[in-house]
């Protein structure tokens, strides 16, 4: 028993000894390799004056089969140097403009550096990019293009998928039920028929319906992109209106022919622009409608809308202002001496954050609902959820109103009746009153 035990110990000792010997014999070799490589690497600044590089096969082998004892830290440099020069601009000859080519190269390099840039960029977009004066504006524009490209791609992929699914379904139907049609007692209601109904309704509204004016006079206050966004929103607006139970008669007033606005409309709608059931006019709304019927809806108005009036003509300023331009639409209304109103957002909503201006499509959905139901709660559901916390209780509101009479905002709708009725006519008697007070 004891002998076996000692024998075992002996074996272990031998094993360890053997291992040590092996290790010692390997180590110097590794060291040598390391120094050799170091020698190779201390010189690299000089031996590369020319671009073509004759590479000895050693370093590549070296780092791939390197023992872990001594780490090869600089092997990657040789790998990099052995690579070919990146072909960045394949079209440097075709693009005559050298700065344009330089910009294209810049985009390519930014892509390599991990900046979010589009895969394809047209010459027109490149020119816009060149006009961006700062680095950050260039990057922002590229990001915008990249996002756009990505969205487009995603929707295309989705479309493709849907089409494939449909094909599959059809094929399956062919296999299973041969060519027998689906049997139903309902008539198929074609989307064409839907369109017909909608158009009839809108046409009817254009004769008998309540007008709703979009004031297109803000073209000069918007950037190109904002203007495009506005057109986008107006297209959506028209869609909502067309599908409503009782549509408005839409008027696009102050829309000058061949202005960028008009051109954008024509570009986006194509041929449909001419068939659109909307009244487009170059005239101002004050020329088209009687002044006392008009009410300008603007977030900056001191007067709060109480009920939706079916005999009035509401005006919505069609403008997208990404950097909020306070009082712009109010200024327009003041100039034309029109009545202004704002939505009673504070009254029905516990506002959380964000400006109280709304997009045009939200605006039409609110107005359409108001017109149909007269229910503010229902209508104001179209205010974006993120902006408010909850609907406020009607009873709480009345308490709140009496509590805070002193608030700066409230006085404007607590003010004297005379002013609410006629807010901007700097009336004689107010002047007189002031003089009298000064005289005091």
């Amino acid at each position, binding site marked *: 028993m004891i002998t076996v035990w000692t024998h075992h110990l002996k074996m272990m000792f031998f094993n360890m000894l053997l291992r040590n010997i092996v290790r010692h014999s390997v180590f110097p070799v590794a060291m040598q390799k390391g120094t050799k490589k170091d020698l190779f690497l201390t010189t*690299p600044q000089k031996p590369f004056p020319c671009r073509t590089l004759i590479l000895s096969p050693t370093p590549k082998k070296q780092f791939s089969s390197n023992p872990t004892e001594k780490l090869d*830290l600089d092997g990657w440099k040789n790998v990099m140097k052995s690579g070919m020069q990146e072909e960045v601009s394949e079209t440097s000859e075709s693009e005559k403009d050298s700065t344009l080519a330089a910009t294209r*190269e810049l985009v390519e390099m930014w892509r*390599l550096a991990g900046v979010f840039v589009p895969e394809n960029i047209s010459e027109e977009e490149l020119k816009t990019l060149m006009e961006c004066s700062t680095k950050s504006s260039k990057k922002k524009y590229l990001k915008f293009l990249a996002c756009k490209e990505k969205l487009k791609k995603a929707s295309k992929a989705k479309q493709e998928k849907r089409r494939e699914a449909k094909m599959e379904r059809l094929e399956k139907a062919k296999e299973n039920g041969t060519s027998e049609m689906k049997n139903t007692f309902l008539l198929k209601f074609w989307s064409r028929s839907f369109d017909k109904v909608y158009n009839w309704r809108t046409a009817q509204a254009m004769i008998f319906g309540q007008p709703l004016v979009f004031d297109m006079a803000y073209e000069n206050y918007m950037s190109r992109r904002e203007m495009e966004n506005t057109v986008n929103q107006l297209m959506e607006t028209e869609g909502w209106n067309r599908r409503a139970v009782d549509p408005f008669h839409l008027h696009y007033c102050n829309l000058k022919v061949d202005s960028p606005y008009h051109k954008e409309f024509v570009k986006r709608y194509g041929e449909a622009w001419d068939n659109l059931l909307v009244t487009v006019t170059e005239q101002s709304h004050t020329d088209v409608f009687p002044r006392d019927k008009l009410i300008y809806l603007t977030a*900056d108005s001191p007067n709060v809308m109480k009920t939706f009036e079916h005999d009035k003509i509401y005006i919505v300023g069609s403008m997208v202002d990404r950097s909020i331009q306070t009082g712009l639409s109010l200024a327009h209304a*003041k100039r034309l001496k029109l009545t202004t109103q704002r939505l009673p957002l504070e009254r029905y909503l516990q506002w959380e954050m964000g400006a109280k201006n709304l997009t045009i499509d939200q605006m039409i959905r609110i107005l359409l609902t108001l017109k149909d139901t007269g229910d503010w709660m229902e209508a104001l559901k179209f205010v974006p959820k993120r902006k408010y916390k909850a609907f406020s209780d009607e009873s709480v509101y009345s308490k709140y109103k009496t509590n805070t009479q*002193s608030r700066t905002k409230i006085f404007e709708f607590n003010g*004297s009746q005379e*002013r609410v009725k006629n807010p901007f006519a700097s009336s004689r008697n107010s002047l007189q009153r002031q003089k009298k007070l000064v005289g*005091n």
Partner: protein
Amino acid sequence: MAFFYVSSFLGLQTLGKYHLFWPAPRFQQLFAIIFRLHNREHVKSFITTSQSAVPVDPNTTHMLSTKTRSERRDGEKREGMARGDTSSPHPFSLFSAGAAKRRSKNQEEPFMISKRNGIQPPEKPLSVEEWEELREEFKAVSKFEYVMLEQMIKYNSSIDVAKSLLSMVATRKGDISYNLLVKYLALCIKQEQLAEVFDVFDIIKLRFKTLEPGAYSLLIKGLSGSDRWREALLLLEEIKKVMTPSKANYGDCIKGALNNQEINLAYELYHEMLAKELIPNLDTLQAFFDTGKCVKDDQLKSELLGILLYLRENQIYPGETLMQSIKLWFESIPGEKWKGYITTITNSGKCPVCNQHLETIHLNEEEYNILKAKIIKDVIQGTDVFRKTTPQELEEFRNFVENHPPYDIVIDGLNVAKVSNRRSESQTLLDVVSHLAQKNLRLLVLGRKHMLTGSPNWKRPIVAATQKKADFFFAENVSEDDPFLLYATLHSGNHCKFLTRDLLRDHKACLPDSLTRHLFFKWQRGHQMVLSHYWPGKRIKFQPLPTYDTVVQTTGDTWHIPYDEQLVERYSYEVPTKWLCLQRK
């Protein structure tokens, strides 16, 4: 309940520590929280609003004061009051450096938690296999190599660790991406590993025909501190092909040139960047002065004085380190015996070291007229008169001002009225107006028409009493009153002051060019009165108006240079309070 005690204790402690005027509404807010807690409602929302309040804007404090008014009625126990800060030469001026920071002291930065913080770079270089293991561990992290290298930059790991990571990438992919190389370059530059920078530069040059500005900037920074600094200039030319180089790019090149005594080249670059309307970084300017200390050259001297004048013209204030360099340079000029002292200037505008009066803050005739014309054109009328007023109202106001003798003080009635939290608004205004009327000053108060409707805040008899002591003009409720304030003040002449605690930044922003904006700011500092003490019925005091202009200035034998202290955070609408006084013996 525990929170109640803690917060009330904190509130009182803060009151004891900073007797400042501005944060008063914030104390009210603390009280408000306490009272809310009693009611056990909306506690959370209240705290969030207090945290999200913007620190600098007086309108925000203003807004808060209106927000908590209803609670204040019953809960208010202390009056907001102001006392001078002893460390500042003028007791708490609105425009002295650090005032805004003091006002916002209670604000706390939200704590940011990043997902990527979990990854820590290894301490020693790893082998390829070990790296692969680590990669497996962090499978969830996409772009493991990039994140790891970024973390290395953050933790300032040894470059050997980064090299081992690159080796792993090279083994795996047979190539290293541009992005990764640039990140590695950033790490090398951070640790000033010049040999590595050269290596990476050579590799990048070999592999890529052109680079993007990020890599160029890093390379310029790396190369300009070495013997190969001239190559940095070539890279600068490369950037120019696609965009304007940044001021840091120019700064690095200039430093490279100065280190190698190429002073003329440095000045060429300096003037080139000024021509591109880039404002040089302060450390670039410091490099010039540091070089000037060792090199005695008349042309260099005039160039350095030119830099000081540039600071003057653009209202740039040097930091503490640049100030020290300027001081040392002056003291090193042979044969001129300059001596520099650090000082603060008294309110009279006299330098306590050399007893010299500083330049006056008042505009001269010509500047005044330019400012007046621009204010009327760009601030009051702007692009559309209807946005701030109406043509009729403007005309009416013009007639009003024409038909009255020049005023001494124009008061923003609604702003002044909201100064106190306890008194009703009309009473506050009456107090202030009667205090000023006692001094036989001609006063104009601007208000809005709603003040006449006899609301609880604006009681008719009090408004009528105020109207006996001063002229009033009531604007429409939808008009802005600040433009009228500016117009009336400017129209009354250079002696006329205005009283408001609004910083008027939105009106300053309407002015088109920086010259007029500087003029406006100078005029504003010299003419804006701000209420500093208001104890209802007892004491009303205003912040003293500075009589001198805070700008780099010289008389030939002396230089006075205002500078920013290292620890004071100065906002853009404030001016420094510390000065360097240099005089020739």
